[in-house]
């Protein structure tokens, strides 16, 4: 065997791909095929399922759940914009002004991960509660009306998702910004660019790969998220993730749940491709 390996040295790098490849085949490709096949089956738990190539199910699913699909994309988009607006300045400050506190500041960014995602979202429920310490106090002071509520509104759900995915945005942005040579910004200033112009013409284009990675890491999980809508929202904030979860686990309507999952995947894939083209255009503008 070592003799064989020695003769085919070129193969060694590919051997390193084997564990990851097996892992992905097992936990991504196989489920994906299963999901696709389940979507195209008809039947019920009682009578059993048969593969009927019922492509009409996709149309049916979109028609039934169009509100939730659109809402998910909307929420995902808003969350992405918000995380970017909050995260970019954070990453920028840490990268360019962090000095010797860089690592500590980054630690603060990922600190929330030390506690479970669910626990943190539940605590948001307490914070935003109608008579919780924030709204309760504001109401006692007469600053907001008694009927005002945050819980069970889009604001609560979007804030929750934004909060949960912020670190995923800050980290790739930080990595991209930290790589930029500060002398490039000085060079821009030297060539008559104001601070803002230097940002627009040099810093931003050079961090665009980070912006892309960061927005994917917030948009994709945000669109598919169901926990925040579940805990912080009402029926009016139901997202597609909640629908899929209910179809699978409550209604046991596996074909429809699978079809919706595939539609969601495809929707995200298309958004990503469109977005990538848009950014590529941006990068080249001067």
């Amino acid at each position: 065997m070592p003799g064989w390996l020695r003769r085919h040295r070129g193969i060694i790098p590919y051997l390193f791909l084997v564990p990851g490849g097996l892992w992905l085949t097992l936990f991504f490709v196989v489920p994906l095929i299963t999901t696709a096949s389940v979507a195209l089956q008809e039947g019920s738990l009682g009578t059993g399922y048969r593969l009927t190539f019922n492509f009409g199910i996709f149309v049916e699913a979109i028609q039934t759940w169009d509100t939730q699909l659109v809402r998910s994309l909307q929420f995902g988009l808003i969350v992405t914009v918000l995380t970017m607006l909050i995260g970019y300045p954070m990453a920028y400050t840490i990268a360019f002004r962090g000095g010797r506190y860089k690592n500590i500041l980054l630690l603060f960014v990922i600190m929330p991960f030390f506690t479970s995602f669910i626990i943190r979202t539940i605590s948001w429920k307490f914070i935003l509660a109608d008579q919780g310490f924030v709204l309760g106090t504001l109401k006692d002071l007469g600053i907001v009306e008694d009927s005002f509520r945050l819980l069970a509104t889009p604001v609560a759900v979007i804030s929750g998702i934004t909060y949960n995915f912020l670190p995923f945005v800050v980290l790739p942005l930080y990595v991209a910004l930290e790589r930029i040579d500060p002398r490039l910004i000085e060079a821009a200033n030297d060539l008559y660019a104001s601070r803002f112009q230097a940002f627009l013409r040099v810093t931003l284009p050079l961090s665009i790969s980070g912006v892309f990675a960061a927005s994917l890491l917030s948009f994709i999980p945000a669109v598919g998220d169901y926990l925040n809508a579940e805990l912080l929202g009402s029926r009016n904030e139901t997202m597609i993730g909640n629908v899929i979860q209910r179809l699978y686990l409550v209604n046991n309507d596996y074909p429809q749940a699978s079809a919706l999952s595939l539609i969601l995947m495809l929707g995200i894939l298309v958004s990503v491709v469109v977005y990538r083209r848009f950014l590529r255009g941006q990068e080249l503008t001067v």
Partner: protein
Amino acid sequence: MPEADVRLDRVTKRFGDFTAVDDLSLTMERGEFFALLGPSGCGKTTTLRMIGGFEEVTAGTVYLGGADVTELPPFKRNVNTVFQNYALFPHLDVYENIAFGLRRRRVPEGEVRAQVKFMLKLVDLPGYEKRRPNQLSGGQQQRVALARALINSPQVLLLDEPLGALDLKLRKQMQVELKRIQSEIGITFIFVTHDQEEAMTMSDRIAVMREGRIEQLGRPEELYERPASSFVAGFLGVSNLLDGEVVGRHGELVDVQLGDGTLVRAPAAASNGDTHVRVGVRPEKLRVTSSHTEAPRSVEDTNALEGTVLDASYIGVSTQYIVQTADGHKLTVYAQNLETSGASEALADGQTVQLTWRPQHTFVIARTDRDVDATPQYEEGQVPS
């Protein structure tokens, strides 16, 4: 009196407790090629960055063309910089890199195109418009950086070790190129380098810096022929230094008695009236002769020292001797191989010789506490002691 283009008036820069530039005053004249020369860490870059506006001054005033610009940000100063390692924009092609400054000033497209074209020709890079910086060699990047700065027709161009990253051959070539470009467009160049040879061949004037101060300022030949301190003498080439006392004066010359009692003569003007001095002479000014062929010598117009050859190395153009004097000083001598035709004719190791030189070629340095020799960067690698 030529017009001042850049003037630093008692400028100081501190980083915390550390003083990088210390109460520095300097005037650069219009159209001049001015070099800031000194060892690494002496404050050259910091000085340049204060002129460019990248570093706030702790105290003092910076004038550009007579106007006080101390408080102005870089983009409001009419100077441009060629950065150490160039700092080209990696996401822009050569054309857009060069056009960057004009675009920020909203110059019309047609004019931008014409000027970029002109600049590419000036730096000898036509046809490279569409290349990205990472597709260029070091020398080409250097030219783009130069074009990117010059296209703005700045009043002053600042260059921070612009040739430092190039190999020796390219470096020599770019030195000539830079000189040509500077004389073609006639703007002031302020050039930072730690390479004495580069500074000497390129500059009209050189300020030798040391620990945030100017050690000596002058034309290259002034600095070389009449260094004002051991530091300058050692930094600009090889020099032989001998301690002595001024014991008398004869018109234009002073008598200096060396440690071993020998009397040598030096120009009185150079001695500045000091008594405790160091006399110096450059290796190529020394004549070495075998003691047997005792040359007729008169103290009036020749200085002479006896010594023993420690080492002779034949280097083609010249032969380098290390000669030890009676009291142990080692002197370096470059003897041109005018009449000899090979190593065999050189003086042999251990031979007793006489070193002679003209009093006018002697320089005099006051002995001070700061008399520590510089770490010179000459090529032959012999350190005079």
